[in-house]
């Protein structure tokens, strides 16, 4: 029965409504005449809904006459009707089909390179390196030899220790691992001294190898030798060693900042204008740039227009958002000005302090005059100032 159903679907069938008093006779006659009808359902006393093969539909005419009934077609189903529908809307389906083919073809290219795991290496450089090896936006996925590219990039970029290229949809996800740290400039077999990296007062000198030249409490200048690798002993030949020492010293950092009481502040007025650019591959379609504001803030956002998860296509909408600003003259109170000074100094001094430095003291001084507040900050820290220097 199932195969017959499929056959009927392929040939096309119609749902018909038969009206008449002799429904049973109608069905029997259809059966006797080898007209296959199925899914017969009574709707009411004189009406029946049934399905019939298209080819057999005309043969019903005799039976209709004999049984005094009437037949009307409710709807038509099956493959022939689908095909006819497609034929009738040829243009629409051609466009639909070509769109699918287009998307399929487009999705076999790489349209986006995502680089993960970068810490200090320049991303641009990695991208350039990848481009040189053939992985760029718009390269065909099938032709990429990932192993080869990975190896080449590793050879060309010694600062990377590992690279993995993964292709997901139209994205190429490049994961890199950078080499942890630079190898020491002076190998442990070479003799070296230890010199001061900056001015300071030695508070603790821990010498592991080599001879100390200074004591705790000595004030040292930048470049002064602190530990020597040349060891001189009585009755012995001079010997040279690789000095190792921890030189903890007190050092100072200073900074100054001046803030005038009269300040021009820019405040957003709430007026916002937007401009859009369309970016297709590397081509940009944009109107003339025009901003009606005198002072403004500009924000640029990029959005992928067509993207399905990992399938990203190179159509981008770039939005420029202009926010109007209005300059406002503001007179600061003394306290406000002081606070601002301190804020800025704090931020700046934080950048100056080396990693691992211990802050001992911090001093802030304010000097007032008619127009401005001037602040100076000095921070006293403990840090290791020893730097190795090879003995010539």
């Amino acid at each position, binding site marked *: 029965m199932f195969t017959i159903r499929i056959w009927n679907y392929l040939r096309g069938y119609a749902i018909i409504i038969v009206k008449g008093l002799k429904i049973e006779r109608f069905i029997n006659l259809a*059966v*006797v005449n080898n007209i296959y009808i*199925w*899914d*017969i*359902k009574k709707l009411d006393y004189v009406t029946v809904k049934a399905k019939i093969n298209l080819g057999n539909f005309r043969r019903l005419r005799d039976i209709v006459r004999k049984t005094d009934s009437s037949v009307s077609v409710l709807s038509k189903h099956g493959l022939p009707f689908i095909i006819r529908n497609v034929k009738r809307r040829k243009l629409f389906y051609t466009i639909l089909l070509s769109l699918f083919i287009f998307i399929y073809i487009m999705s076999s290219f790489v349209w986006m390179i995502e680089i993960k795991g970068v810490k200090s290496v320049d991303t641009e450089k990695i991208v350039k390196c990848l481009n040189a090896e053939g992985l760029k936006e718009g390269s065909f996925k099938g032709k990429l030899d990932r192993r080869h590219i990975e190896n080449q990039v590793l050879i060309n970029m010694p600062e990377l220790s590992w690279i993995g290229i993964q292709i997901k949809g139209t994205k190429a996800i490049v994961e890199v691992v950078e080499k942890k740290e630079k190898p020491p400039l002076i190998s442990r077999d070479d003799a070296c001294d230890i010199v001061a990296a900056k001015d300071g007062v030695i508070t603790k000198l821990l010498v592991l190898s080599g001879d100390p030249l200074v004591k705790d409490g000595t004030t040292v200048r930048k470049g002064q030798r602190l530990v020597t690798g040349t060891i001189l002993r009585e009755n012995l030949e001079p010997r040279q060693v690789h000095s190792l020492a921890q030189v903890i010293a007190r050092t100072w950092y200073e900074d100054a900042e001046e803030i005038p009481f009269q300040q021009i502040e820019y405040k957003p007025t709430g007026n916002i204008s937007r401009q859009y650019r369309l970016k297709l591959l590397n081509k940009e379609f944009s109107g003339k740039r025009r901003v009606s504001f005198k002072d403004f803030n500009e924000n640029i956002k990029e959005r992928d227009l067509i993207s399905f998860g990992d399938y990203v296509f190179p159509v981008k909408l770039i939005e420029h958002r202009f926010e109007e600003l209005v300059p406002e003259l503001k007179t600061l109170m003394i306290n406000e000005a002081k606070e601002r000074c301190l804020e800025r100094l704090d931020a700046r001094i934080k950048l100056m302090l080396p990693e691992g430095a211990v802050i001992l003291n911090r001093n802030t001084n304010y000097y007032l005059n008619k127009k401005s507040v001037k602040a100076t900050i000095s921070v006293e820290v403990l840090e290791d100032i020893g730097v190795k220097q090879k003995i010539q």
Partner: protein
Amino acid sequence: MGKRGYWLKEKLCSTFELPKDIVLDVSKVVIIGAGQITVENHKGLIEYSEELIRINTGSGIMKLCGRNLTIKNIIQEEIAITGVITNIEF
């Protein structure tokens, strides 16, 4: 076919274990659960409505009662009916 002929055929069937529905021209009714019934070897539909179907068979008129009865298939040798069947009578 006289009564004698029928008796002879039936005897023949039981001795040689032949399928009765073929030899005797009676119908074979297959009921699957209470939802589907297939009648092979029928001799035409007599009455059809959603609650009642009467089918002519070799061994008399078969009366089927139920709800939502639809004729899934009907061909010369076979008629398949689905729906909730409550009653079968000969």
